[in-house]
């Protein structure tokens, strides 16, 4: 079936099957590799994309549900977005696999809560797992992005 949505600002039409998840479609049809398969159950956040501005686990989001939506992945950020800049300056990553999910979740969170406490950041990012264990610097990066 054909699914129509906007991806990183560009109106797009993709071919997908009704039982495919948005994750597979974004990677295969649009070569967007920042969304990654990891847990398959929506727990870890490595597949995060913003759908109509809100973080969604694309690995458990049936592709047809994206019809008419606006999807943002990290490829749609400038590379110099304040959150990205803060992550670089604070060295808030190691292997990078979870990083796009962290960045998008942080961006969405800061739009709602521009001056968060450490506790609030931990709760907001609690659903984004980082096995490398970069949480200390990630929290610092989010605070820096909030200030800047």
């Amino acid at each position: 079936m054909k699914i129509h949505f906007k991806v990183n600002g560009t109106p797009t039409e993709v071919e997908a099957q009704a039982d495919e998840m948005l994750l597979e479609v974004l990677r295969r049809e649009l070569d967007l590799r920042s969304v990654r398969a990891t847990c398959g159950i929506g727990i870890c956040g490595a597949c995060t994309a913003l759908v109509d501005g809100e973080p969604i686990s694309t690995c458990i989001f049936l592709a047809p549900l994206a019809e008419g939506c606006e999807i943002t992945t990290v490829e749609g950020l400038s590379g110099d977005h304040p959150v990205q800049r803060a992550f670089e300056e604070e060295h808030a990553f190691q292997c990078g696999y979870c990083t796009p999910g962290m960045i998008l979740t942080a961006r969405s969170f800061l739009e709602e809560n521009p001056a968060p406490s450490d506790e609030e950041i931990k709760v907001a990012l609690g659903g984004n797992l980082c096995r490398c264990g970069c949480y200390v610097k990630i929290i610092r990066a989010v605070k820096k992005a909030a200030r800047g």
Partner: protein
Amino acid sequence: MSRNIPQWLAPTSLQEALALRAQLGDEATVVAGGTFIGILMNQKIMQPQALLSLRNVSELAFIEASQDEGSSLRIGAMTTHRAVERTSLIHQEWPVLASTFSLVASPRVRNQATVGGVLADADYASDPPTLLQALNARVVVRSEKSEREIPVEELIIGYYETSLRPDELLVEVRVPRNRERVVYRKFRSRSSEDRPCVAVAAAQVDGKLRVVVGAVAEKPQYFPEICALAEGETGGYTRELVTEIGQRYAESIEPISDSRGSAAYRRRVIAVEVRRALEEMVP
């Protein structure tokens, strides 16, 4: 290679959706938010023949409460957890409802998962059904030809099992106004992101104590006869009373064992957490 790619059905009205339910029954899997179905499909536990999406049935996404005394909060089945968490009306008047929905999983799941879906899934470890049952909430279930309103405890009847018939849809949740001293405790035995090991919801509804324990058995556990021990305790619950209610709940439940705790451990925690919930209720 023979593989059935399921049909995607996307009705745009409730009437259309109910007609499809009448026509197809369980041959079409209902998709509300789709989180649970996504998980089951990724694990290859479920391979639906058809998918019936309620996404475009906008009449199912609403939150309403009239000012009339005695009138309920009405939440449409397609309302997301996130909407419940954020809506100021619910924050102000049913704050524990808002906070309990905010405890579910992660923001991503809450953006996608719905109030109707979490009830229809009847997942034993989900938070909202336990609280809704303690609040004496009722669900509205419709088919093409009929409508019925049933309490949550009549909806959820077993492990991932509801009393919904193949031609029915859960369309609305109604939460009573006349409730006081609502408490929800989510005891996690491991990570801060873990699902609950023991969950306790307690509320006074129409002056009567309702304690519901979730995440420990196939469905939320409620014992009105034990709660009746609190009847007539106008001054507040004594230490002896809350301890006894906790003990009796622990003795009355046959807990399961899972990755979050053994049955024996759950028994210990049930007694403690029920008591603590009741202690929290006392002003």
